[in-house]
């Protein structure tokens, strides 16, 4: 039994102050034989869950609290508040929420009035000044004078005053130091954090850092030596800890009850809605197996008392439907027939043979995880609806704790050490964002002297600070909703983003406490689909929904199998395009596999080629163990989906369901290094013992590691595959509507608008240029002839026009008879008029672009005049642009051209040199050497490709994929990194109908082409 409890302990979740992880503090407390430790982070409970989880493992107790900044007579004082009971904890969270609400982000100031109704809290006050006011507000029984002994010069006189004031007020004295790190060795890191927080270098930090290293977690012997003159004040810490019986496990979380129709129970209403939806889904006849599945799911939902959660998701989906917002559930929810019938997901799990247990199980008793994808442009409406419906106290977004990664660690620590900013920038450029170890040689390469003390400190401290929290951000869409106010569970802070509030815990904390989270995520593809459906209804009277898009369409699969998928959701990337002719999807399930297979998990686990060979019948379908046939049958004996990997762990490595679940969590928390690796030693020997070949066991483990980064569960792949199919179908049968919709949904997807326009043109879609009398803000469809439509580019594509210009143009009365009328009616400024003139929008008035520029610059002077505009005083005639220049101007003014491809102007010169176009390249034989010139539309260096960079080059006839080995890239680094127009000399490589040009050298073509054509989309 320990003889004291440290009551003032700040973890590294007291951002840029504490220098130890909560787990480290708990572990050290345990090692020192302390039975309890308080966690009192600055202005919050940020590190509490992590400490709680570790304390549960080790069997020690956490005293829950926080260091508050309290406003007493206009000055902020630090006071430690400790929660005695659940009620006390709720009051603490509430007070912190109020404190944050009145301050800017990252700061809290609690007022005494906020604590007026607070019960069951202890307050420890380390300074004499606010003692009297606190005593009046809280009474002496809840208040302690906190004596600290960090061996600083000013502490003793202050203690004297504090003790005198305590005596006078009848307050007990308690002894505890401010703990900022678990070990003395972290002092230097604490200094660095203090400097980062203050934005100063160590040499100029002055008193921003602590004067000595006495803020470590001390043993009882050390503390009792410090307080030898007053052991009673230490003993009192035990009394306090004893009375603070609150534990995070005491949080009884209840999901908000939906407003139920009178006479209905939650479960009954869910059942009714589910079967009502089932009748709709199955057109009045619910198949027996589906009915059975629904009954089974409802039974589990009832047992777990999760009905409220499903009803809430249903309500959100209903809100989206009623407001014309397209949404679709994904993730493991797609395994649920109830979700399917409620309209939350679009995948029929019974038909897809998906396992409900992946979503919910009585054994795991975890909250369900439903991610709802929403049209990205309208997600905020849904978020604000949730706030409005549940109230700001009952709904808040989950936090995303921004942690130090290798680059930010080197940059911030180096700055605090006073290193040259240029050297630091060079060093950070050499580091990869995902590196989790700082290699000292890299620092040397960056020009830092290897043995210099500063370099050694940089290496050591930047390594230590990795994964430390830096600041609180906001999760992309995670909501915490509660039956009771959320601010009684965790403090709520205002987020930087307007009208958003955020809790102090991230998704891992929320998961660990088994709290329910609703994920509302934005997805551009849904916006695109919605817009396309609207266009089809408007122009072709074709009414469609995701569920009514004709299924298993041959023509769509033909198109997809050719890799002709520019703009198609999920299967448009270079890697997907290269895979499609090999996999040749012919069914929806093939698309599900296609979506899942081009991922780092299957690629790193070397699962792709065996699958393709087996699919083509080139390799026998073998199962490493008969037990595995059931798991792997759908994917020809090759594990591709995340749940297959988990099932493998159970079946082949004898994992218990609990271990398999831990494996899933460890895969999800891939960044926390080491958590996956511990499964290697557990899993491989067990698989070998089961008679599974070592090579297969190794491969499965590699894949697990790969999944750690990015791997899809089957249900998730199926949800995405559905959107992939819908977008592919739209592109195949209504290319003009698809193009118009995707152009209006930008930014999204993989390609630039220029590439989308070129692709549409190559597929026979007429794309018409921006015209002030015909274009609307968005792109529109116009009648081309009696049976077809053309796309008219919208004014949104004119660079330099924004919301204000849109507001001026949209109410205008097009068509305008002349430029002067347009200028007068819209009152646009000179810059906007110039942009429109440059984009060729005034050609409808018979003006070439240069003349138009000259005119609008003259006319814009009279915009504010009440009288009709004067004609331009003197019209100088400028020469018209040549065709090639027109294209270049289009790109400069609107990032695309409907008039032609920039390469068309060069074709004659290129042909003269024997350089083929993309179509001709694809016709060349395997092994043939050639030169090719194209515009770079994409550079990509996947982490799985061992340094190979893939370029996608485009010309007026199509794409050429170029493979550039690392040595070739390094030899031509500048050209490779900067050229918009690239020449490649290389060899044709053909396999399974896929053509690649393997580069031997890269060069800058000496043909004239202005650089301001297209910018590539690069992913490094």
């Amino acid at each position, binding site marked *: 039994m320990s003889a004291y409890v440290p009551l003032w302990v700040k973890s590294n979740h007291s951002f840029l102050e504490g220098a130890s992880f909560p787990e480290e503090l708990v572990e050290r407390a345990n090692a020192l034989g302390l039975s309890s430790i308080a966690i009192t982070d600055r202005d919050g409970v940020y590190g509490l869950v992590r400490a709680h989880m570790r304390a549960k493992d080790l069997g020690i107790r956490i005293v829950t609290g926080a260091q508050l900044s309290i406003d007493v007579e206009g000055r902020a004082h630090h006071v430690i508040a400790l929660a005695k009971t659940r009620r006390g904890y709720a009051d603490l969270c509430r007070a912190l929420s109020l404190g944050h609400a009145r301050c800017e982000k990252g700061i809290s100031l609690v007022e005494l009035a906020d604590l007026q109704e607070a019960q069951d809290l202890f307050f420890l006050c380390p300074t004499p000044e606010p003692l009297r006011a606190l005593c009046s507000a809280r009474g002496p029984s809840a208040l302690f004078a906190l004596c600290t002994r960090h*061996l*600083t010069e000013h502490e003793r006189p202050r203690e004297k005053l504090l003790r005198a004031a305590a005596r006078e007020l009848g307050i007990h004295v308690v002894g505890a130091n401010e703990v900022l790190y678990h070990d003395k060795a972290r002092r230097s890191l604490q200094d660095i954090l203090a400097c980062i927080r203050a934005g100063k270098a160590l040499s100029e930090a002055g008193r921003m850092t602590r004067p*000595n290293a006495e803020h470590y977690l001390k043993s009882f012997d050390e503390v009792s030596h410090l307080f030898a003159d007053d052991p009673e004040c230490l003993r009192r810490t035990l009394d306090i800890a004893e009375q603070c019986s609150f534990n995070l496990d005491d949080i009884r979380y209840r999901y908000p009850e939906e407003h139920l129709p009178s006479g209905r129970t939650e479960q009954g209403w869910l059942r009714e809605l589910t079967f009502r939806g089932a009748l709709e889904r199955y057109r009045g006849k619910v198949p027996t197996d589906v009915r059975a599945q629904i009954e089974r799911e409802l039974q589990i939902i009832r047992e777990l008392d999760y009905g409220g959660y499903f009803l809430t998701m249903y309500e959100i989906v209903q809100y989206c439907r009623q407001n014309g917002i397209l949404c679709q559930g994904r993730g493991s929810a797609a395994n649920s027939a109830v979700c399917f019938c409620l309209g939350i997901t679009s995948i029929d799990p019974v038909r897809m043979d998906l396992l409900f247990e992946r979503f919910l199980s009585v054994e795991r008793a975890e909250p369900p995880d439903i991610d709802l994808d929403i049209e990205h442009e309208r997600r905020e409406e849904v978020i604000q609806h949730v706030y409005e419906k549940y109230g700001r106290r009952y709904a808040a977004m989950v936090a995303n704790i921004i942690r130090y990664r290798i680059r930010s660690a080197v940059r911030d620590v180096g700055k605090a050490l006073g290193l040259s900013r*240029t050297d630091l920038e060079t060093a950070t*450029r050499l580091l990869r964002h995902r590196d989790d170890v700082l290699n000292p040689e890299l620092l040397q390469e960056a020009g830092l002297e290897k043995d210099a*003390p500063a370099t050694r400190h940089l290496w050591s401290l930047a390594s230590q600070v990795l994964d430390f929290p830096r600041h609180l951000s906001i999760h992309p869409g995670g909501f915490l909703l509660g039956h009771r106010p959320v601010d009684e569970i965790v403090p709520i802070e205002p987020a930087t983003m307007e009208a958003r509030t955020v809790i102090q815990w991230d998704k891992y904390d929320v998961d660990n406490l088994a709290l329910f989270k609703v994920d509302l995520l934005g997805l551009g593809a849904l916006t695109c689909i919605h817009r396309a459906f609207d266009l089809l209804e408007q122009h072709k009277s074709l009414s469609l929904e995701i569920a009514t898009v004709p299924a298993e369409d041959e023509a769509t699969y033909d198109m997809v199998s050719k890799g002709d998928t520019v703009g198609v959701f999920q299967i448009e990337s270079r890697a997907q395009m290269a895979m499609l002719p090999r996999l040749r999807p012919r069914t929806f399930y093939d698309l599900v596999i296609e979506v899942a297979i081009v991922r780092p998990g299957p690629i790193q686990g070397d699962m792709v080629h065996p699958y393709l060979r087996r699919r083509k019948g080139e390799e026998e379908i073998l199962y490493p163990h008969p037990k595995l046939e059931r798991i792997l049958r759908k994917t020809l004996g090759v594990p591709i989906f995340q749940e297959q990997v988990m099932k493998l762990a159970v079946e082949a490595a004898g994992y218990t369901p609990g271990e398999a679940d831990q494996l899933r969590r460890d895969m999800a928390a891939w960044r926390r290094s080491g958590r996956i690796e511990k499964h290697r030693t557990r899993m491989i020997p067990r698989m070998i013992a089961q008679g599974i070949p070592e090579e297969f066991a190794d491969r499965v483990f590699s894949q697990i590691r790969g999944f750690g980064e990015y791997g899809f569960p089957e249900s998730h792949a199926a949800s995405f595959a559905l959107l992939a199919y819908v977008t592919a179908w739209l592109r195949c049968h209504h290319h003009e509507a698809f193009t118009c919709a995707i152009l209006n949904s930008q930014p999204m997807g993989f390609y630039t608008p220029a590439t989308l326009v070129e692709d549409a043109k190559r597929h026979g879609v007429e794309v018409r240029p921006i015209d002030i009398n015909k274009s609307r803000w968005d792109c529109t469809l116009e009648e081309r002839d009696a049976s077809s439509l053309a796309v008219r580019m919208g004014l949104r594509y004119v660079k330099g026009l924004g919301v204000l210009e849109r507001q001026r143009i949209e109410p205008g009365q097009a068509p305008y008879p002349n430029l002067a009328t347009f200028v007068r009616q819209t009152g646009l400024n000179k810059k906007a008029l110039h942009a429109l003139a440059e984009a060729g929008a005034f050609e409808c008035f018979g003006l070439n672009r240069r003349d138009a520029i000259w005119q609008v610059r003259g006319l814009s002077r009279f915009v504010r005049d009440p009288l009709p505009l004067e004609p331009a005083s003197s019209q100088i005639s400028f020469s018209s642009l040549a065709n090639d220049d027109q294209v270049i101007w289009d790109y400069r003014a609107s990032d695309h051209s409907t008039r032609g491809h920039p390469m068309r102007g060069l074709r004659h010169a290129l042909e003269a040199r024997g350089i083929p176009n993309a179509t001709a390249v694809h016709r060349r034989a395997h092994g043939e050497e050639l030169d090719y010139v194209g515009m770079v539309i994409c550079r990509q260096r996947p982490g799985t490709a061992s340094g190979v960079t893939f370029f996608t080059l485009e010309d007026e006839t199509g794409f050429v994929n170029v493979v550039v080995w690392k040595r070739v890239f390094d030899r031509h680094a500048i050209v490779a990194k900067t050229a918009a127009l690239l020449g490649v000399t290389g060899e044709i490589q053909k396999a399974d109908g896929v053509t690649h040009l393997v580069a031997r050298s890269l060069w800058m073509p000496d043909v004239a082409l202005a650089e301001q054509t297209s910018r590539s989309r690069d992913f490094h």
Partner: protein
Amino acid sequence: MKRISCVLLPMLPLQILLRRKPCWQGSPIAIIDDEGPHGRIIHLDVLAKKSRLRIGMRQTVARDLLPTLRTAIVSNEEISEISAELITSLQTFSPRVEAIDHPGAFHVDPEGLRGLYGGYRNWATCIHRYLRARQWRSAVTVGFHRHRALAVAMTHRGVTILESPEEEREQSNETPLRMFGLSGTLCESLRALGIETLGDFLAVPSGELHSRFGVEASALHDAFAEELQLPIQPHAFDEPARISFQIDPPDEDQHRLLFAMKGALHSLLHQVRARGEAIQSLDLSLHLERAPTHREHLEPASPTLDLMLLLELARLRLGETTLRGAVEEVEILATTAHARAEQVSLPGHQPHRDMSAAQRALARIRAAYGERSVTMARIREAHLPEASFRWEPTQHARASERAASSSVSSMIRRVYAKPKPLPPREPNEPEAGPSLSKDHAIEHMYGPYRVSGGWWKRLVERDYYYAETDHGDLLWLFYDRPRKRWFLHGVLD
């Protein structure tokens, strides 16, 4: 017709940088506006341009593209300083030199010098050679119109002599507009209309340009109008006030030297007063017989025209100095400043505390004991006692900010400039306590107060104590943990 010439040092900031770092020759170089990650490139050399770097690019991006790129900042102050030096150099070739609003460009008036040099070409070649000998790249153009001559210099190297205004017009019209330092937006807007050279630009009516492209465009247009040509605005010679005189025979007697200096200073003051200025400091150079020149710097409390004050300062300084030989020549150089109103004000009511008297006293101390002899303590935020203040030389006396002496008596801690090591004692652990001299013993110790830090340079870890001796002295001492030794750091009284 009157001639005018333009001397242009193209890419002056880059040239300055290369003179500063000659070893960078042959490497791609960029001048940036800030050392940090957001620093942008503002000048590039040819090699860097060939590597596809562009002005405006962030230096981090550029270094990523071209790891061999050398980057540095050339400050505006540095450019101004060099420009001033260049003006002085060019004044060798013509008394009328004007720095123009284009980096590295100067107008030099060649009028009247043709005969002296044997023609304009020879004159211009002399300038070009002179600059080349000092590692400056330059273009020298002799023309007829100040702006057109500059335009020609922008596109030519070496020496260009334009024979007629027509030739000048023809050649300058070819100069690309982007070379005139116009804003990027204006350049782009004009380029969009196909206006890319000076000739294209001047073909557009000025009034139309103003209404459409603003003042910047019309100002450039107007600058080339033939009738608006301004004459050269020559840079004034900036001669410091200086006087020198011989001592014959050489003498080392300070009284006689001061007497001789009195007359010279009188003339110097006359000269300075005539400029409406006062003497801020004096540099005395005493050229000695068979010994190196002896130099002294004197600075009065404030700029002055008071002869006696200056003589007094000189007397005080020379009184403290032993000359290593007889003085054969005295040279006095005065740095001047504009005379302030106080210097001509009439004596009036003097406050009780005469700060100007204090300033004069401090000036006398400085004159007697050297420039750094008067210091004041500046408080600094630091944990280590010796780092928590710094002695800084000061020029001016300041009235104490403490209003009145506090009624509460407090002890004064007198801190030693350097802690004094106390005699070692075995075992040398802090528990053993410090040992003082034989006659003193410590009766009580209060502490410890721990100060540690400096781990990034030299680790300091001290346990401070207040110690009361049997004599009643209060000492302030510490145990230095890394050195395992006791030190006395101060006393209290």
